[in-house]
């Protein structure tokens, strides 16, 4: 009983598996990616930092794609070739310092490169906002978005949750405190309008549970956490109308929590704002 007798089908099974790996995983994976480029892809980027993010995604795509294909081809090759047959034995080979060092250091080097590129982009995304940035507040609730512009004084007035008008009733959905003079000129809207090519600081809050402010075309996503005000900034670069989605599970209406952002010229935004404040 020197060997387990090799059942006759081993090589055939190996070749079937190898073929499946090459056809389904390698060709299928690459083919589907090409198909996806046309049909199921990121929206065209419409923000300044989004260009950097996309470049990072494509670089990672290239690197991981190559590894994906090569390693699967390697497995397919071994599976094709080393199905039990004849009477030969497997190699008694279980250590190779050089080989192991190579495949520790090469991935490490690749990862360090990717980390460094990622760190640069991440630092830029979260750098201090430019001085000429406008500011707007986003407040999430079950299940919708509310926006607030500070008005001519540039100051957001005080808000008080106790003053928020009950659902369905018009009045004071944001809970503005009339006792604070700074709140008098605040403009509360159900839509977001932003000026093209003008950096904007967005202060994100929530009224009830955690939501997430997601604008796919801008590659922007930030959780709206109750009890916190989180500020991010970005620069829209293409005029047009874009969707805001909620990306953090917030209850049964999570999937309908749709918002709209319009990017237009500076003047158009001002005109629109003037209409909002009656």
């Amino acid at each position, binding site marked *: 009983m020197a060997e387990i007798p090799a059942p006759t089908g081993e090589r055939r099974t190996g070749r079937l598996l190898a073929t499946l790996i090459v056809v389904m995983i390698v060709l299928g994976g690459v083919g589907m990616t090409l198909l996806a480029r046309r049909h199921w892809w*990121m929206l065209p980027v419409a923000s300044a930092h989004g260009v950097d993010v996309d470049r990072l995604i494509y670089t990672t795509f290239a690197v991981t794609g190559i590894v994906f294909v090569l390693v699967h081809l390697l497995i397919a090759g071994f599976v094709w070739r080393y199905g039990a047959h004849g009477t030969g034995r497997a190699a008694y*080979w279980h250590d190779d310092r050089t080989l192991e060092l190579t495949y520790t250091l090469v991935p490490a080097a690749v990862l360090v490169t990717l980390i460094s590129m990622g760190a640069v982009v991440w630092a830029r995304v979260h750098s201090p906002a430019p001085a000429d940035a406008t500011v707007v507040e986003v407040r999430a609730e*079950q299940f919708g978005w509310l926006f607030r512009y500070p008005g001519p004084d540039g100051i957001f007035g005080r808000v008080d*949750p106790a003053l928020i008008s009950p659902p369905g009733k018009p009045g004071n959905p944001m809970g503005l405190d009339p006792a604070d003079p700074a709140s008098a000129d605040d403009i509360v809207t159900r839509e977001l309008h932003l000026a093209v090519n003008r950096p904007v600081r967005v202060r994100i809050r929530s009224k009830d549970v955690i939501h997430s402010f997601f604008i796919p075309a801008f590659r922007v996503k930030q959780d709206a956490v*109750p009890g916190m005000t989180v500020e991010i900034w970005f620069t829209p670069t293409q005029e047009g109308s874009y969707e805001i989605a909620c990306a953090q599970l917030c209850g049964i209406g999570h999937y309908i929590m749709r918002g709209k952002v319009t990017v237009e010229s500076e003047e158009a935004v001002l005109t629109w704002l003037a209409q909002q404040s009656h």
Partner: protein
Amino acid sequence: MAVAHGAVHEEHRLGFIRRYIFSQDHKIIGIQYMMTSLFMAAVGGVLAMLIRMELGWPGGHWGVARWLFPGGFSSDGVLKPDFYLAVVTMHGSIMIFFVLTTALSGGFGNFLIPLTIGARDMAFPFLNMLSYWLYPPAIVVLLSSFFVAGGAPNSGWTAYPPLSALRNAAPGSGLGQTLWLVSLAILIVSFLFGSLNYITTVLQLRTRGMSMGRMPLVTWAQFTTAILMLLSFPVLFAAVVMLLFDRHLGTSFFVPSGLVVGGQLVTHQGGNPLLWQHLFWFLGHPEVYVLILPPMGIVSEILAVHGRKPIFGYKAMVASICAIAFLSFLVWGHHMIVSGMNPLVGTAFMVTTLAIAIPSAIKTFNWVATLWRARIHFTPAMLFAIGFVSLFITGGLTGIFLGSPAVDTYFHDTFFIVAHFHFVMASAALFGLFGGLYHWFPKMFGRMMDERLGKMHFWLTFVGIYATFFPMHFLGMAGEPRRYYSPQMYDFLRGLAGLNMFVSVAAFGLGLAQLIFIYNFLRSLFRGPKAERNPWHANTLEWQTESPPPHGNWGAILPTVHRWPYDYSVPDAMDDFIPQTVPAAAVPVAGGALDDGLQGGAVDEPPVAGSERT
């Protein structure tokens, strides 16, 4: 089950109940864990089919399903949004905690640890029995949440407060959420009993000659996993208790001041929702390694045995398991990149996250190297092991995207994440589970499984997994958020309807293919041909005793270990395997004495006192 020669007379004295129900025998407990987990896998699988039904045809009418889940569907057969979220939540919770953790640690851990180290049982058999018997009550509590007012929780397996903390935040945030938390608390106690036992057993009960450096990788993986569980689950336990306090005793660990929910001012004050996320993911990330380390061990074993070749880089494998385990405590923040925590913290977690990719890469290349110049027997176990390597590669590579915070910002909470963790964790762990079952079934039940059905199961599952989960990457590329009842509300998601249908059809096929496994498993249990002791010609100790092993495992004397577990295809040896129990001098050789230098790990290990090696 075959009873050993007079080995342990005690067994005869035990009645049926103490022998098979409230058993303290690690093998029975392991099998109990395994069977219960497989049952739960079926429950979780049916829930997955419901999810894909809804996402493939949002708002569709499903009269038949209404008959199965009367409360979840409206009168015209449309799945309700809150039931959808309940299904998603329960699918995730069940699969992660009640299937994979219990099957891989509770099932294989219990069955294999004493057998592979040459022990008669676990260190604390009674504790072991308690550990199993906490599991069914946890299941009952969990599933009962489907039947209470408001239904099962809606907050996802991550249960982020305030959604999970405030009763009126969602229908499922009432009693259903409380039951979920209580159930988890019970299960955690069970896990802690288990892991304490595994660690002690490995440290204390190894047989003569079984140094740590001669332990099979499957045992190393179980040992490390138990340490991870022991250190991380208490943190979740604390979080669960704190959330229960917030819900019922008026504390405010996680709920800040000034919230308005359902038109009412919430009275809680001063808590922080991010605290839950930190506590949850401090468990949550180690937990994903709790799910993947045991399959890594299983796969290492299978590749060596069915490839008739030593595992490549044994020491590097052990070192990477330890490195992964250690680093897994330092990466939890990568789940919180857009949570509102300081971006600098994100940078720190990026570094640790990519650091953990290195030992993962080493392991992967070691498995691939093991295949080189092997003599592969494509048994179902081997096919699933090779499938595991492929899935782990695919899922690991998408992890490199997510490890880069600026990129993760786009992909977070989209279907890209769903694709990523279903490859690297869910499917890979499932393949480890299947591979392990095909491999150890003969030892567990004394019968062989049917090879042809096993292979058919593999082909369909392998194709089904890729067809189901690979396209999800592109749903995520296009920005489809996860946990959506329907993507049709958004213009930018409209083009995805066809792809979603494709995924659903693939998922149904994948689900159906599992019926082959169930049939094969049940049939082999009763009708399979009797298994010999060592049908795969393997070296590790469990294969040197009867199939199934008797109570007490080894007859009158414990085995003695003389070598590492991977002496396969040693040149000049007569057989292509040399069990761990064979002394160096006793190796039957084809021509002349066997050179010591050829014995791999055994040479590296200082001979243990009393070792026969000369």
